[in-house]
C-alpha cells in the first residue's frame, strides 16, 4: 500500500511569479485544482503555519518546514500544491509548500 506521492518529486505544472499565477488564475480558474506550482513572490505576511505571498496567496507549509526560515518583505521561491480559491478569506490557497533554495 503506497503512500501518496510527495511534493518534492512531483512534476511542476506552472512555474512563474506569484503575480503571474494570480493573473492566470483569474483568467481561468477551472484548471488549477491540485496543480503543482513553483512561485516566486514577496512575503507579505507570516503566520504560524504558513506565509502569504503578494497579499493574495496563502501558502501553508509542509509540516517539517519552519516559518522562522522566512522573512517579511523578502522574495522567496516556493513549490506547493494549489488547493483552491478560498472565498471566505478571498485568497488563493496552497498546501504542502516547501522553500526552494536558492531563490530562482
Amino acid at each position, binding site marked *: 500500500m*503506497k*503512500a501518496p506521492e510527495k511534493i518534492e518529486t512531483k512534476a511542476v505544472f506552472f512555474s512563474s511569479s506569484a503575480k503571474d499565477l494570480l493573473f492566470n488564475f483569474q483568467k481561468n480558474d477551472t484548471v488549477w*485544482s491540485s496543480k503543482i506550482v513553483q512561485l516566486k513572490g514577496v512575503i507579505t505576511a507570516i503566520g504560524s503555519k504558513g506565509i502569504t505571498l503578494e497579499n493574495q496567496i496563502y501558502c*501553508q507549509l509542509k509540516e517539517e518546514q519552519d516559518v522562522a526560515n522566512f522573512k517579511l518583505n523578502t522574495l522567496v521561491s516556493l513549490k506547493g500544491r494549489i488547493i483552491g480559491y478560498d472565498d471566505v478569506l478571498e485568497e488563493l*490557497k496552497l498546501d504542502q509548500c516547501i522553500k526552494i533554495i536558492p531563490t530562482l
Partner: protein
Amino acid sequence: MKKILFLLLLIYGTSCFSQKYFTRTGATDFKASVDFFEPIEAKNKSTTVLLKTSTGEIVAQLFMTAFQFKIGLMQEHFNENYMESYTYPKATFKGKLVDFNLSTIDKKSNYTLKGILTIRGISKEITTTASLKKDKKQLTFKANFSVTPKDFEIEIPAIVRKKIAKKVDISLDYVLEKKV
C-alpha cells in the same frame, strides 16, 4: 463633557467593530473504518474557519482534495469515485453557536452548534455540541458529529460496502486567532 464623549465613542467603537476569530489551518478529520479491515480515515489540516464572536455565527470551508490519506490509492478513490472532488471541490458549513458569549466563556464552554453542512452540492442540517476554550490570544473550538454517505448521495459499490462504515464520524479541531 470631553470625558463623556470619549467614553461614548469608546463604547460605540467596541460594539461597532465586531470581533472575528479565524484560522486557515483547522483540522477536520473523518473516520469510516470497520473493524478488521483497512482503516478508512483522513485528515484535512487546511480548513478555513471564521467566527464572529458578537453573534456566534461561524463559517467553515474546506477543499476535498486537501484530505490526506495514508494510502495514495484510497485518496485517489475518495476524490475521483466517491466525492467527485473536481466537480464539487468544497465542503462548507454555515451556522451558529447558540447563545455564544465570549465574555463568559470561562464559565460556559459548551454550546449548541447548529448549521447547514454542504457536501457535493447537497445540504444537510447539523446539530451538535461544540466546546470552546479561550487561552490568551487563541480560541480553541472542538466538535464531533456523524453523517452517512447516503445523506450526500454517495454511492458505495457493493464490493466494498462491508469495508466502509455506514456512519462516518467527523471531528473538528480548530485553533482560532483574532483577525486584525
